[in-house]
């Protein structure tokens, strides 16, 4: 699914990622943890194609394609989804209109017919249940005046509608209270499938109580300092990231 090889990236000429390697296979859930400033969000945004980040070295293969050469919208249509850490507000842009436009862009890219209004409504209804989101939010402007939890649910709703191959969730758990965290986690779990991979970027291990990862990687200073399973996350929680920085 995803092969990252020796990835270096910089923001404003300041190196953030410094030779990162990662391999994600279909159906796997990878958690990427690390202290603030270690490069977690940079990794997520570089994979999505944000032009504010310069890739200075390295190679990323996504489903056999060279990801870094693809425009952000092509990456999206090929099934790469990023749930943003800070979902942006779009005044006046109806949530449904955005969802439909996004879905149709993907269908069109696949050479399929656009979805008709009735089918779309049916789809939305079933997906709303997954994220337990208030129907009313659908007809509001995207994220405008949404609470923090509603914004994050809205990201998961978009993911549920677009059914990506590779979902990258950038600190989707941050700022959520325990109820919202459970709902969002349930949403993620429902979308688990043998063909879908999930990369969970997080600062805290608590979301891993609800979404069980196959692998846990600790990112420190732009490189993966250690990889392991669920136990590693618990260890980090007990001993802090300092323990690993010291090890390095």
């Amino acid at each position, binding site marked *: 699914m995803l092969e990252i090889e020796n990835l270096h990236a910089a923001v404003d000429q300041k190196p953030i990622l410094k030779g990162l390697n990662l391999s994600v296979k279909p159906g796997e859930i990878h958690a990427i943890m690390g202290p603030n400033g270690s490069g977690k969000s940079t990794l997520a945004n570089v994979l999505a194609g944000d032009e504010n980040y310069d890739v200075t070295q390295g190679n990323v293969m996504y489903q056999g394609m060279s990801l870094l050469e693809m425009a*952000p919208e092509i990456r999206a249509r090929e099934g790469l989804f990023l749930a943003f850490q800070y979902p*942006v507000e*779009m005044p*006046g842009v109806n949530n449904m209109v955005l969802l439909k436009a996004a879905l*149709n862009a993907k269908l*069109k*890219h696949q050479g399929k017919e656009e979805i008709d209004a009735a089918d779309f409504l049916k789809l939305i209804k079933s997906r709303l249940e997954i994220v337990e989101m208030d129907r009313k939010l659908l007809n509001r402007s995207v994220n405008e005046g949404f609470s923090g939890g509603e914004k994050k649910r809205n990201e998961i709703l978009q993911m549920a509608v*677009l059914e990506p191959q590779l979902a990258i969730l950038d600190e989707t758990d941050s700022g959520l209270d325990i109820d919202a965290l459970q709902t969002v986690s349930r949403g993620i779990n429902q979308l688990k499938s043998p063909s879908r991979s999930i990369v969970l970027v997080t600062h805290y291990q608590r979301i891993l109580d609800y979404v069980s990862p196959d692998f846990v990687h600790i990112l420190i200073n732009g490189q993966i300092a250690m990889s392991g399973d669920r136990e590693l996350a618990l260890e980090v929680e007990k001993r802090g990231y300092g323990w690993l920085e010291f090890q390095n």
Partner: protein
Amino acid sequence: MGLSQEELVDVISQEYQHGFVTDIESDALPPGLSEDVIRQISKIKGEPEFLLEWRLEAYRHWLTLTEPKWSTINHHTIDYQDITYYSAPRAPENQPTSLDEIDPRLLETYEKLGIPIDEQKALSGIAVDAVFDSVSVATTFKDKLNEYGIIFCSFSEAVKNHPDLIKKYLGSVVPPRDNFFASLNSAVFSDGSFVYVPKGVHCPMELSSYFRINAAKSGQFERTLIIAEEGSKVSYLEGCTAPMRDENQLHAAVVELIAHKDAQIKYSTIQNWYPGDKEGKGGIYNFVTKRGICKGDNAKISWTQVETGSAVTWKYPSVILKGDNSVGEFYSVALTGNYQQADTGTKMIHIGKNSRSTIISKGISAGHGQNAYRGLVRVAPGAENARNYSQCDSLLIGDQCGAHTFPYLEVRNPTAKVEHEASTSKIGESQLFFCKQRGLSEEDAVSLIVNGFCKEVFKELPMEFAVEARKLLSISLEDSVG
């Protein structure tokens, strides 16, 4: 409601769509302006003496005026002797009496523009008056409207058949001495639309005029007069296009609306005159005076405009709120791309007690476009409890364009409440990236954001036209990013 992405992509990939020229012989006066030219126009139209005198008086006054210079607009000097003031497609010996007799080339022109003047094919519920250069070539659904006592015809016909109404109302809202361009129009206007809705009648269909400039060097000087009698209601829409030409052409129209007691007039404009090319060459100079009066109590006038065309737009659709409890509204989207300039806004003149007005203006600037909102809210001493709410938002796309806001407030009654809000924003990089991450192209993303920005205005348009307005905006935004 929404345009599918496919439709958006389709329209984005097009340039100015209406730039073709209809190959048709026309009867035109030679370029130039003089009393003699005015006499000829009046004679061709077979006008009564009072109207000729009215024109000549306006002309003589116009000669004493100079072009207004207070707006933000810069344009080439207009040579008023180099303009053709009358041009009409050559008609058969006798004027066509029914739609079947109209030159098929004209029918074809309107068909190409998507304007149905064939009643069989027409959108149900929309009557059209089609104005080609200086004359009205067809008006549809006249008979049906007649059943309600509604008069919907070309201005020339109204002069012939209803001279008393013309005499009573012409120039009653925009006097012939009002301003430079209104005086010019009063002197040389050649045609336009006329609407009269009798007491208590709610017009059963949308009325619309479609203005097309075809002939080179010709100016278009139409006049629209709408009278809504007590308790009546009418919704009217105008659309405008012109061929692509390198030289600038002048359009100087006058629109007058009269709403009597308890009457409502809704006037919507989709203005898409040729805006000029990417270097700013050519395009229509659009200098228009539009004003309505809420004459009686509880009357309401609502202006909605979507201005995407013209090299230069200078217009301030206004409402005089004379009646008590009368309501004035102005909803505007003005888009300037390439080298387009717009100086547009409104005037709300509160005279009646408890009169209320709302102004929502959305300016979008892209490329080297310059966009100015200029609005006046005046509350007269007797306008107890007058209320105004104004909101002016500007959206900038790129860093070569400009947005300006000039609100003028004159409040002479202490019980009045006047609110003004303004904002300027740029399309955010993070919004664009978010849309792209969801699979949308940059053009689609811009369309979506801009349409969202204009939503409050688009919802005021009749349904069919809201769709058209969205399409237009997408076309006009082509290449405005990146």
